[in-house]
């Protein structure tokens, strides 16, 4: 503690900063920022700040701003209303039943101011640290590390041989296993027709010489075509005579006897 009479020896101090806190609403980032600035002006540890004094300062500030007809953002006014409410709670006689507890609300405001202050200081401390590209430098053009991806392939001798075996098996099947084609060969048809015709001298329709109930349609058509050509061939050889009344009429056939 400084004794009263000692103060005369002290150098003249600068005027306290509170006096310089003039209205400059635009430069605060919202009500909390303004509250923090006001709290800082109290020049005490934020943990020991008088919330009541702070609330009065804020409300006074808002009142002055309105007197100067400065435009106040809505959130400044909302905060003012809330702080006025908090002030009324703090001034009323202590009611243990009160919900919320005004002391707790004041503590929380204090906590929030402390936390914002802490983050603000930490940001500045961070910026004061050595920084890459200003204090420290990395190599500007490092060669870089190359990474080649090399694949090794897996294939056993057995895989190789069984693959070739499979190909060979495939090929041999396609060479030797001839699919039965559903046709009656011309030779077969001639032989058959000649045998059936025999020595018959009655005109008989060609279709009557065809085998009955041919299930396979394509085979039936092949039989018809081959038998017709066979009939023409037998006629050419002089072994049969062909007759047809009109176009698309049934083709008639009989053995020829000279």
């Amino acid at each position, binding site marked *: 503690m400084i004794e009263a009479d000692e103060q005369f020896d002290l150098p003249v101090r600068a005027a306290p900063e509170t006096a310089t806190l003039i209205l400059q609403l635009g430069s605060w*980032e*919202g*009500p*909390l*920022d303004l509250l923090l600035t006001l709290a800082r002006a109290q020049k005490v540890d934020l943990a020991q700040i008088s919330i009541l004094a702070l609330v009065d300062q804020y409300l006074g500030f808002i009142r002055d701003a309105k007197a100067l007809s400065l435009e106040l*953002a809505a*959130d*400044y006014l*909302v*905060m003012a*209303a*809330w702080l006025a409410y908090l002030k009324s709670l703090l001034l009323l006689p202590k009611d243990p039943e009160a919900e*919320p507890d005004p002391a*707790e*609300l004041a*503590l*929380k*405001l204090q*906590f*929030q101011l*402390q*936390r*914002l202050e*802490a*983050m*603000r*200081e*930490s*940001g*500045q*401390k*961070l*910026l004061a*640290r*050595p*920084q*890459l*590209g*200003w*204090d*420290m*430098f*990395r*190599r500007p053009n*490092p*060669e*870089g*590390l190359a*990474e080649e991806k090399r694949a090794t392939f897996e294939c056993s001798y057995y895989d190789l041989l069984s693959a070739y075996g499979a190909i060979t098996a495939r090929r041999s099947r396609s060479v030797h296993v001839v699919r039965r084609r559903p046709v009656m060969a011309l030779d077969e048809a001639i032989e058959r027709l000649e045998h059936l015709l025999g020595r018959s001298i009655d005109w008989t329709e060609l279709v009557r010489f065809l085998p009955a109930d041919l299930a396979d349609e394509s085979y039936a058509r092949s039989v018809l075509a081959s038998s017709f050509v066979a009939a023409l061939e037998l006629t050419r050889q002089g072994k049969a005579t062909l007759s047809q009344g009109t176009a698309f009429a049934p083709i008639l056939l009989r053995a020829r006897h000279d």
Partner: protein
Amino acid sequence: MTDETVDFALTRALESILFAADAPLSLTEITRHVGERGDLLPTLRALATSYEPRGINLVERGGKWQFQTAPDLGHFLRTSREMVKKLSRAGVETLAVIAYHEPVTRPEIEEIRGVAVSGGTIDVLMEAGWVRPAGRRETPGRPLQYATTPEFLAHFNLTSRRDLPGMADLKAAGLLDREPPRELPLPLGGREE
């Protein structure tokens, strides 16, 4: 070969790899280049110690290793063209909030700062490579969380977040608790800038 010469060969390999790398390397990445050689950390730490008094330092930043010049020699190396990115006050504060509280959601950043955080502020931090989205918080609305990157640690010459200035004190004071004692009914929601 004695143990000592084996270590020496490994040390040389680590030096060359970290020197040639075009980005800080994690232990996994280093192992890919030197092959499986057991725990590399003791050798890396010994190497870092041997470089400490030199003009080149080997440092670990967020689990990644890199060579860089000693922080006190910047004045030899700066050219007038280089300029430190000027962050706005909102940017510095938001970066500090994210770094000290990560992972943190935007509503939480806004609550701490007492103003709405404009999209541009977080954008600038992400563009600088210091901040990244870090998954969603499994709470109603599943808000996106933000965290810092290894590049942030490297930029500010920090080995890990534990080295953030004042980290231990802030933690002890309870100022980094995600939830204050109970939810604050303070009406906040001003606009920044």
